[in-house]
């Protein structure tokens, strides 16, 4: 059978029936028929959607800007199947992780490549481009579509095309303006029964049900609100500077913690001007965003200027683009949230907004209000991007193109922390604290510091290409591109700073009494280069059969080795190049066989592809070079010392190779009123690179090499429907289901797992484990009997497994995406939501709330009678019997407190693994376009106003008591899945916008 199919295919390819050239070009996406759309793919090569042989999805401007998200990347969330965007850290300049179809690399970069106007760019630049100037984003999910980018394209590509001139020669202005308001929501739920205090505390020795009351505790191990203290007005915190005390009723304060956050305000204004026609145009955009964050004084100011112009001069065409981004952010240390989490339940933190750290609500925490004022980092970034596209058409068949970009960036960061000595001696309060000083409570004095980091970077990217376009026969179109690519990136960073500012409030290196040694600071230069030869072939038979193949041969400086033996003998330089290639084909039966096409099925397309690409990003810059580092404190005067670094790369390391296969099917029914897109893929990662932590006894602690194989596979289903479509009313729904799984097939000999991250707070970490999904959360687990009950020891304390076990996976089993829009005359209502399940995350906020007696779990029983682990059992004479022993074999309040505040509670990793299931409504937007008839007599061409909400509703899994947003992670790297206490909660945003052209 195989042979016959092949021969038929060969016949088809060589037959010559007269047909129009299928690959007609059009620049605009606003073609009426969605199937005729021309999309921009890798290296700026444009193709009709039919000719695209791997899966992609185009998101246009209207969808990106519907809810005015200032971050174009975040606005894709929930809209593209297979694209997972996690906002890992909420801040004034939030960070995101963008992964297409799940991770392939364990240690290397898994984030999608960003290409803006034909040249490689960065996620950071994309996140700072005003979304309204983006014409469309083509998300290339299939690896084959990105194979032309070689190593850089191994994780899929987001091809961004910014707006160009309109067809009309008229000068056109476009004004956009929006303002929105954010508030934190989903603050952790806390128990409502017990307040500040501690059993055995000496401040007030009165016994209240086994506990003592202390006004300055950071814990809620104090009296119950139902005790005689409940409802009384009591002193709280430490005495203020004038030795007076603040007072608070001893009762649960619902908003005691969330009152810390204010309403954030984001204002965006943009004006763009376009002029010109098809052979010459100018486009200017000026955009300003001001973001005032929910944490007081944290703000961002961003100005973006873009000037684009193009001109056709006979056979020569030139397009240029200059972008200047100026961004200033001012932030405090987000670790203040960890301090805020220790607000006792009877305290309204706002009372302490003017209190010094020695007069805060607790003597064991640093007042977060003080942190806001005294711990600040200000960053000023300037990024200048110049981009040029040139084309010279020799004749109808041959052209030469050049696409190049040079990006020059600079960043100045200054941070300071003011000192606080904690040397006050409390006096005259007539309480036991008289004569004590904050340092007696174990507080480290806060030593002032100042750091300044200046860095500059330069990046060049250039493609030079020769393009050939021939009709070999009337039916067979042949396009061939061959080219060469150069990339060169360099950075330089200088840092100064140190501790102890002589004159408070003067932030300058000249005021630093104890400057840090240069060896401790970041003073570095880096350089990375690569070059590649590449070729692309497109064959089109009539308008229904397409074939594409790409080839790239690439060499990168990352794999350059310039070895010198330890004896100082120079060995030959080596650098190996690697070939990457791909094949793909698409077939449109509804065009090949007119008979199939009918009223029911109006469109069908199948495509298949295969690619082999590599990823060298996993090899660290200079990783192959063996170097030494200063031990702590060196050099001491003229005595210097170096020790060899303990992280080592194998000298013969190779890029990891992804062998990718993909098949997809697209169907359109009832004139595309119902569309279906399905694709299935498998990526085999051969010889992935990872760092294995080694036995310390080997003398090195980490070793990086090609050590294993993994497989990433999955599928995506997209269903689009337009149930109603009349002149005035249209309702569209789009739903998607995407799933993927990355499995570790093999690891290095002798290793079953690789730790990516180990928590220092509890026994849990993020691992790659042989035979398991990647990445997984591993940690110690409660020992359980066959019925799943927790086994406790004779003292009533739970037993934990001594080894780490798999506790959950970081990535969801599947993601459901849903979006809809209603249009009625000028009114549009749109919404986007997604649902993720099957994933887990580690919440260190849960640990903090537990040990401070604030979590609900700590108050689900009467503390004065001790805590018997619910449903626990003891092993007695080989039998599991119901346990009646309270923790620590102590049936008092003290026993409960002792359990939750010590390793007995905090060391069992399983306790802090939380179900990450979440249903999130990401965007709801309502807009109204004023009818043209009203605007007719004015100079305004179009006017729309709208209201919108981002993140209006989240529903978490039952066991996630709002500990954290499941997307929160302390890294945008691969070791996600751990939310630390220094990460702010989620925010919901409501706003309105205004848009006019004239």
């Amino acid at each position, binding site marked *: 059978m195989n042979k016959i199919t092949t021969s038929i295919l060969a016949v088809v390819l060589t037959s010559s029936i007269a047909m129009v050239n299928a690959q007609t070009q059009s620049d605009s996406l606003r073609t009426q028929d969605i199937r005729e759309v021309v999309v921009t793919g890798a290296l700026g090569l444009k193709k009709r959607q039919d000719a695209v042989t791997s899966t992609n999805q185009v998101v246009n401007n209207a969808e990106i800007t519907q809810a005015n998200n200032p971050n174009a990347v975040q606005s894709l969330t929930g809209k593209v199947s297979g694209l997972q965007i996690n906002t890992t850290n909420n801040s004034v300049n939030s960070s995101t992780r963008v992964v297409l179809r799940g991770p392939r690399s364990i240690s290397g970069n898994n984030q999608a490549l960003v290409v803006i106007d034909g040249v490689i760019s960065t996620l950071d630049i994309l996140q700072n481009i005003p979304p309204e100037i983006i014409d469309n984003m083509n998300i290339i999910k299939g690896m084959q579509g990105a194979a032309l980018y070689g190593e850089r394209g191994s994780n899929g590509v987001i091809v961004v095309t910014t707006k160009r001139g309109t067809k009309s020669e008229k000068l056109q202005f476009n004004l956009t303006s929006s303002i929105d308001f954010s508030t934190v929501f989903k603050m952790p739920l806390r128990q409502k029964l017990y307040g500040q205090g501690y059993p055995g505390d000496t401040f007030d020795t009165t016994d209240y049900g086994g506990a003592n009351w202390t006004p300055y505790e950071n814990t809620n191990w104090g009296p119950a609100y139902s005790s005689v203290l409940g409802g009384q007005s009591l002193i709280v915190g430490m005495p203020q500077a004038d030795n007076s005390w603040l007072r608070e009723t001893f009762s649960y304060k619902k908003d005691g913690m969330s009152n810390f956050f204010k309403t954030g305000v984001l204002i965006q204004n943009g004006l763009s001007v376009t002029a010109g026609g098809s052979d010459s145009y100018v486009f200017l955009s000026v955009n300003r965003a001001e973001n005032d964050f929910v944490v007081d004084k944290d703000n961002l100011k961003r100005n973006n200027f873009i000037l684009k112009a193009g001109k056709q001069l006979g056979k020569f065409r030139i397009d240029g683009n200059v972008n200047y981004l100026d961004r200033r952010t001012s932030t405090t240390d987000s670790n203040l949230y960890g301090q805020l989490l220790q607000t006792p339940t009877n305290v309204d933190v706002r009372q302490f907004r003017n209190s010094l750290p020695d007069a805060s609500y607790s003597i064991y925490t640093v007042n977060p209000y003080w942190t806001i004022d005294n711990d600040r980092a200000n960053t000023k970034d300037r990024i200048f991007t110049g981009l040029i596209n040139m084309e010279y058409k020799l004749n109808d068949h041959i052209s030469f193109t050049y696409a190049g970009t040079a990006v020059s960036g600079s960043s100045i960061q200054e941070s300071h922390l003011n000192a606080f000595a904690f040397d006050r001696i409390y006096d005259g309060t007539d309480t036991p604290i008289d004569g004590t000083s904050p340092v007696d409570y174990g507080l480290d004095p806060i030593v002032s510091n100042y750091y300044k980091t200046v860095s500059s970077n330069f990046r060049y990217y250039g493609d030079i290409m020769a393009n050939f376009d021939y009709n070999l026969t009337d039916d067979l179109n042949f396009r061939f591109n061959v080219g060469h690519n150069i990339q060169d990136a360099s950075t330089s960073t200088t840092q100064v700073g140190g501790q102890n500012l002589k004159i408070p409030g003067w932030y300058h290196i000249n005021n630093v009494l104890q400057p840090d040694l240069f060896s401790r600071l970041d003073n570095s*230069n880096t350089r990375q280069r690569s070059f590649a030869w590449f070729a692309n072939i497109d064959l089109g038979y009539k308008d229904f059969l397409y074939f594409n193949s790409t080839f790239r041969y690439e060499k990168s*400086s990352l794999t*350059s080795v310039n070895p010198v033996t330890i004896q100082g003998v120079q060995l030959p330089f080596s650098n190996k190049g690697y070939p990457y290639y791909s094949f793909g084909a698409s077939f449109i039966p509804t065009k090949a066989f007119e008979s199939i096409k009918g009223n029911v099925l109006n469109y069908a397309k199948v495509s298949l592809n295969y690619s082999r690409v590599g990823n060298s990003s996993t090899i660290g810059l200079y990783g192959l070079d063996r170097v030494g580092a200063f031990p702590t404190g060196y050099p001491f005067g003229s*005595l210097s*010392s170096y020790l060899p670094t303990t992280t080592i790369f194998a000298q013969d390391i190779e890029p990891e190779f992804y062998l990718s296969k993909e098949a997809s099917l697209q169907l359109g029914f009832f004139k595309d009123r119902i569309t279906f897109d399905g694709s299935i893929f498998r990526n085999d990662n051969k010889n992935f690179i990872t760092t294995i932590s080694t036995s310390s*006894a080997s003398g090195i*602690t980490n070793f990086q090499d090609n050590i294993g194989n993994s497989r990433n596979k999955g599928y995506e289903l997209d269903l689009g429907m337009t149930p109603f479509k009349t002149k005035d009313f249209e309702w569209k729904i789009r739903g998607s289901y995407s799933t993927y799984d990355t499995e570790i097939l093999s690891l290095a000999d002798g290793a079953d797992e690789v730790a990516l991250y180990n928590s220092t707070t509890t026994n849990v970490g993020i691992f790659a484990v042989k035979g398991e999904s990647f990445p997984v959360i591993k940690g110690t687990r409660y020992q359980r009997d066959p019925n799943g009950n927790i086994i406790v020891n004779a003292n009533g304390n739970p037993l934990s497994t001594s080894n780490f076990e798999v506790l959950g996976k970081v990535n969801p089993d599947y993601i459901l995406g849903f979006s809809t829009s209603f249009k009625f005359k000028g009114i549009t209502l749109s919404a986007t939501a997604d649902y993720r399940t099957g994933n887990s995350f580690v919440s260190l906020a849960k640990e903090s709330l537990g040990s401070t007696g604030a979590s609900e779990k700590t108050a689900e029983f009467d503390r004065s009678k001790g805590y018997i682990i619910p449903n626990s059992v003891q092993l007695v004479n080989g039998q599991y019997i119901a346990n009646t022993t309270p923790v620590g074999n102590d049936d008092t309040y003290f026993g409960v407190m002792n359990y939750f505040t010590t390793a007995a509670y905090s*060391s069992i990793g399983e306790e802090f693994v939380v179900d990450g299931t979440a249903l999130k409504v990401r965007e709801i937007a309502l807009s109204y376009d004023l009818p043209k008839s009203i605007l007719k007599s004015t100079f305004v061409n179009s006017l729309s106003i709208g209201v919108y909400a981002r993140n209006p509703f989240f529903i978490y899994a039952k066991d996630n008591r709002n500990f954290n947003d499941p997307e929160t992670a302390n890294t945008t790297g691969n070791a996600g899945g751990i939310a630390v206490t220094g990460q702010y909660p989620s925010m919901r945003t409501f706003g309105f916008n205004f848009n006019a052209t004239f």
Partner: protein
Amino acid sequence: MKNNKFLITILAAALSFTATSCSNDYLDVNDNPNAVQAEQITPELMLPGAISQAYRTQAGTMMQFGNLMMNSWAGNSYTIAGPYSREFSLSSVDNTFYRGIWEGLYPRVANFDQMEKFTNNNHEQDYYIAIAKIMKAYYMQYIVDLYGDAPYNEAFMGQQNTTPKYDNDADIYKILISKLEEANALIDAADDNALEPVSDIVFHGDMDKWKALSNTIKLKLLVRMSKVTGDLATYRNTKLQTLATATFIDEEVVVNPGYSASSDDQMNPYILNWARNASGQQVSNYSVVVVSEHMANALEGNVILNSANYTKFTGLKDPRRTRLFTNVTSVDSNGNPFTGLKGVRQGNVPGQPGVPVDNVNTSKLGVGNFAGGNTPASTWTQIIDHNNGRGGVLFSKSESNLLQAEAALRWPAIFSFSPATKFNVAIIANATWLGANTTNAAWTTYITGIAARPGLGWTGTDIQKIEAIMTQKWIALTNINPTEMFIEYNRTGYPFTPMATTAQFPNKPYRLMYPNSEYAANSANVPNISSADVFVKNQYTPFWNQN
């Protein structure tokens, strides 16, 4: 055609750039310009860093571990919730418990191994290699004493072997002893080409002292084997014989690369960890660490507890007490206040015995630990300067002398010197280091007092003399090298050391669990032991303590 020219110019420029970019020169930019190349690191450059970095572990993790295990320190539970609860309850002596000892020492032992294997043309590196062998033996012994079997023969090979096999602990001991003998041979050879070890931050190139230290470490290894039997006992006795006329170290062996208060990193890690930072501000450990009730009572002559367990101390106040810990208003067993040490009972919280709520005073670490007898020491700036100036104690004179005293007591046929003399020298050495007055009446009272007290001074049976050595060693190593004392306590069972009130086991652990890094990265080789295994004597207990 104007455009064409323009294009050709650009194409030509682009192509020439392309042409140059295809050469290897273009890609030869992968030598890290930000760090020293590994091949440029000579033993001279490696030595000071390896020594001072290893000492950081000794002055940090090991200081806390030993002092808590020996019930010398307690946590200030008056102001801190549940301090050191893990060490007191011993409920989770698991693979994260003090893993910093293993993970801190092993990479440094590897550095000494790298020096040992460095190309040695014409005996240039002889002295560096000798020092490396001695330091390697010193720290490797702690690995064996705290963990038993450990990687050695396959260890330190870097990427050539990231999963080294475990070796028998007794075999490692023998290798360490041979390393010390090799070091002495290299020093004795005194090759003319041997470079002066100019970067020696311990003895500043005095190789005779290194040899004496080498002998002392060898004696320590052999004395540790006091209980072994059979072939190992024969081996021990043979090796002891080689030390019969050896010179042992008789001074405080200190590490000092040039500590100063110019930044935290350049501070002596000892004072930085436990008292003050480079700005002279109190660090949090200083308020957490207080003397334990046990130690306070022993040093205060049993006036606090008036317990039968402390009879040998009764009425005899140790003059070193206020150098080790600060004087506060304490309360004796009759409720009468006195000025002296006031501790906290390990494991208890205010309101419980040993932590009365009507006397919240606690004795913190004393100035003597940091400044010794140096004056003036009235401000912390001065104390910091003294501590930086005198460096960190790698091996104390007192320990050396007590070790010799025990050797001479156990094997009088081999060692002809007087154990009693060594015993007395050790006590004076310790008092001197702490800055106690050794010429006044209080001192005389103490010295003459202990001489009549079995278990505390040099009198009574041999067993009582061992107890006396261990009791004095406990005091002498407190705040100096207490982990050594903890190991000695496990070997001898002396001195009397109460468990914390919250202890969930009847005794201290006989060893530590291998750290979780071994279970994660070397799972095929690491012995699979449980937390319960460390509290009983079994095949996992270090070989010298299995009986």
